[in-house]
């Protein structure tokens, strides 16, 4: 199982879920939080107001749903692949989140930021070329 193609295929399918659900969830959370706004001060009343607004936002609930789907996929893949492999490999979501931020939220993404995201993806490719498991099964 350690070097089987099945392990790799299963791992990459789950990584695809992780790469899609996480950015979509974050973009929905961002949309929701931009509507709520940040707390004006640290008084309990102000914080309670923000929390109430957060709980009433549909975007935030959809975002939480996407992140839950991401979390389930993430937990399952961690049962057979190394954490240090899964975590960087899921960084493709950083490129997707910028694309979604640009398309869905109309954010301005500067060339320098795109360069940074491209470098992050390069780092991901380097990490993805390593074997998903370095420890033996317990």
């Amino acid at each position: 199982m350690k070097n089987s193609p099945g392990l790799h295929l299963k791992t990459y399918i789950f990584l695809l879920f992780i790469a899609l659900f996480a950015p979509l969830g974050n973009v929905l959370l961002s949309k929701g939080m931009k509507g709520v706004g940040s707390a004006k001060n640290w008084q309990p009343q102000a914080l309670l107001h923000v929390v109430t607004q957060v709980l009433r936002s549909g975007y935030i609930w959809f975002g939480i749903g996407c992140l839950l789907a991401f979390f389930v996929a993430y937990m399952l893949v961690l049962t057979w692949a190394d954490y240090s492999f899964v975590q960087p490999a899921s960084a493709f979501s950083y490129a997707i989140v910028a694309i979604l931020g640009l398309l869905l939220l109309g954010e301005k993404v500067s060339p320098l930021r795109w360069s940074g995201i491209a470098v992050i993806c390069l780092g991901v490719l380097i990490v993805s070329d390593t074997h998903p498991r370095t420890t033996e099964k317990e």
Partner: protein
Amino acid sequence: MLELILLICVIGAGTWGELCVSRAMKALGEVHDFRPAALVQFAWRAARVGWMWVGISLMTVAFFSLLALLSMENVSFVVPVTALSYAAGAIGAALFLREKVTKQRWLGVLVVCLGVTLVWLSRH
């Protein structure tokens, strides 16, 4: 300053939370049966592992810090800078989970960190 504190919370609590969850999942073993009943049974077993609750608590702190950060900054900035957690994750995986982090993986993590620096510089 507040944004930096929130970022540290997102990275620190998030990474340690994931490491704790990973440790719990490793203790439970690989999932072979993906039928709903089997997954529910697996979730029930996971809920009885202490590391799982420590991890979930830390990840909750990270989540609310992320929400606060998203109310202040663009998502195309916030999410890429949280990639700094890769460095913390690789160190934690080597020390806490005793995974063998190869030179190539370290190189990848280093490149990811370089990318995060560029994204940080694009802030203003």
